[in-house]
């Protein structure tokens, strides 16, 4: 296992976050000024690539551990990684199906959401991206044996996750409903609520997962050598962020040309 300098890795996390933030701003600009769906898709793929490489470290699937003892912790870690990514692949199909449904039902047109909704959406998107930033910091801290850094990072992640949930359920949904977009109003309403709802459900399960990891981490159950629970919670959390990277433009940005 590489033991890169902790502050180097943390700095890398900051740089990635800055790129993600800039790309999100670019996305918003493209949506309202240019209106090119293809560009929005491209930006989304770049954001996803950054998250999957730097935060989810997908390259760790290139295990190269065939010569290890099959019963060693290190080998089993590799097997668990494969299991987790297969799970995410499977879960991705649900979101893929919802994504396709949005375009089948509504074409490339916008959802009938209010300007308030746009502001709320940009806010909660930023909150979620920030939460991924802190999740990355938490995981890197744990990798380098910094328990305090881990606790701070994961606590902030949980708080931001809860903020995201509140933003969706307590702020955005009532706002949409008062604009006439309800689950039963029409196909657009149904799509909006099922997509934000399914995603929020995954954020909720992520928050529960992270809370368990926080509790166990505070009691000293994890170490730099052995912290699969932290790694898997982090990867799952970033996956939920990846889904939103696609859902946010699909729900809010496409067709919103001014």
């Amino acid at each position: 296992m590489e033991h890169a300098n902790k502050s180097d890795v943390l700095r890398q996390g900051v740089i990635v976050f800055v790129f993600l933030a800039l790309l999100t701003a670019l996305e918003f600009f493209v949506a309202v000024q240019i209106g090119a769906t293809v560009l929005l898709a491209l930006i989304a793929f770049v954001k996803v690539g950054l998250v999957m490489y730097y935060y989810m470290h997908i390259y760790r699937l290139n295990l190269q551990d065939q010569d290890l003892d099959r019963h060693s912790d290190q080998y089993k870690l590799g097997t668990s990684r494969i299991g987790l990514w297969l799970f995410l692949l499977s879960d991705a199909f649900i979101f893929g199906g919802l994504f396709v449904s949005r375009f089948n039902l509504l074409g490339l047109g916008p959802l009938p959401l209010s300007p308030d909704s746009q502001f709320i959406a940009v806010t909660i998107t930023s909150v979620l991206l920030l939460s991924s930033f802190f999740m990355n910091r938490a995981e890197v801290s744990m990798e380098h044996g910094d328990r305090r850094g881990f606790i701070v990072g994961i606590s902030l992640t949980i708080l931001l996750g809860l903020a995201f949930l509140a933003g969706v359920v307590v702020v955005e949904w009532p706002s949409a409903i008062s604009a006439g977009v309800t689950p039963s109003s029409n196909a657009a309403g149904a799509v909006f609520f099922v997509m934000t709802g399914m995603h929020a459900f995954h954020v909720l399960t992520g928050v529960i997962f992270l809370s368990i990891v926080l509790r166990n981490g505070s009691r000293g159950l994890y170490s730099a050598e052995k912290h699969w629970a932290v790694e898997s919670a982090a990867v799952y959390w970033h996956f939920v962020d990846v889904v939103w990277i696609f859902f946010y433009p699909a729900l809010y940005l496409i067709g919103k040309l001014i």
Partner: protein
Amino acid sequence: MKKILTSALVRGLLWQFTGWIVGALFLTGIRVLMGLNAFATGGYFFTEPAWVFGALVGALSYVGSTGAMTDWFRWAKGEEVPEHREDPPGWEKYLNVSLDHKVIGVQYTATALFLLCVGGIFALIFRTELAHSGLQFLTLQEYNTFMSLHGIVMIVGILLGVAGLMNYLTPMLIGAQDMAFPRLNAFSYWVAPPAAILLLSTLVFGGFDTGWTGYPPLSERAPLGMQMFFLGVAVAGWASILGGLNLLATVLRMRAKGMTAFRMPIFVWAAIATSLISTTATQLIGLSFQMVMFQRLFGMGFFDSDKGGNPILFQHLFWFYSHPAVYVFVLPGLGIISELVPVFVRKPLFGYRFVAMSSLGIALVGFLVWAHHMFVSGMNPYLRIPFMFSTLLVAVPTGVKFFSWIATIWKGKIEMPTPMLFVVGGIVVFLLGGLSGPPNATVATDLHLQNTYWIVGHFHDTMFGGYIFPFFASIYYWFPKVTGRKMDERLGKLHFWMMTPSFLALTLLMMRVGLLGMRRRVADYDPALGFDNYHLVMTIGAYLIALSVLIFLYNLVVSIKRGEAAAGNVWNSRSPEWQVPSPMPVHNYDRPFEVIGEPYDYGLPGSVYVKFDDKKSKSH
């Protein structure tokens, strides 16, 4: 008796029932707080949302009460959990949570056999009604429910049987002690009984009248049983998804030394291809059903044209899974055929690499053909030609398998005990299924064939040939490995010779009447069509099939205690599991083995497939 009543299987039933009611009460309470009506007017006392929420809570209560999730909760609490767990001796381990893939495989197989019998009984009921035109004893609604349940119960039975084969065999075939994630494996099994209960509960909730395909708008206005169907399928789907995930991780990570990709037993390739589909595509049937459930519960208009929805969207989402699903049903069975033919003809599997690749090819192309179920649906007409091309392409890798089997059998030294009878039967029946495919693929002919008994004949042939016959072959073949005894040969032959001609008559007549105007999913048909005699023969065939299955079940049960002893390599197979005693040792291979030759080198003097390491011995 006490052991049965306190087993996880039975305990779970009580917990499911309790959880169902508690969940329904809970949601009713929430409704009251929200100012909505607490109870339903007419019918089932609780409202539909209450019953649905209760059903979900009930299913989770079943699984939770078995103990299949206990270790995970303990890990979450930060407790140490021993990695391995020994099962108690005796049969009670089959009724409780075990982490041993062999026990889980038997549990899956037994549950599958149970569901196949239940589904078969439903078929006998409505086949009796159909034997003569006019309605004799079923109402139209009863027919629709039995016919719909027959479909989904059989499908879930096949999925569980597939899981049984893959879970029991794969670790043994690759030299592993167990699957990669044993607790996940146990959990995957234990969601199946509550799912089955949900499906069967439709009978008391007014049934459902849409067929297993559940198309809206009809499914939106179907009785409450429709929701139990949707939820039951979703829960059963978890087993398929998680089981597939487990299998892929196992094959990638736990193969014996020297077992390179093209030195794996061919069944493992089939299992890989199957699992690639089941891990991914299954989510789409869950999603499509969830969307109809939400349409019913929350008025979400996905498929309601009055609200700007699109009923054809449902069909796209549904068939995106349900077509690849049929390859989940048949790829393992076809893998079994490839696995067993060399053993009984004492010749290498012809073109092993091509056969391995053909399983992957079928799985891949299988993802690209779904809309051939929708040629007459009113979907975008420009989609029809591309899907015709992709559908016809599936014939190519399928043909590779057939030609390989024939080339393997040709000039072999052939013996035909019961397992081989069912293998050959599978080849013949699947041939008919496959040959009746291309007319469905070419759109113009499909315009006539769609929704007729021709299609029913086509898929019964493919299902029996691709799954049921190889499934029976597997049970007769591996029974000694599980129990240390053989099943009775004469009863096995009787089973085969009673089932096969009856089944061929049944499906060939289905195709005949379908072409001449017999629609599918009808409770009654016009006597002027002249189909009465055909239907009578079909019903007689169905009863003969049922009788043959009874003979099989009798054979199975009696042989467990009184079968001829068979502790060694009964079939003289090169496969690793037959190089160790029967019943299979608890940890499979106390001495690990290394692969030093090809799996199917029959006829090559001195060739050995696996070599056991006499020095090392695994102690646990």
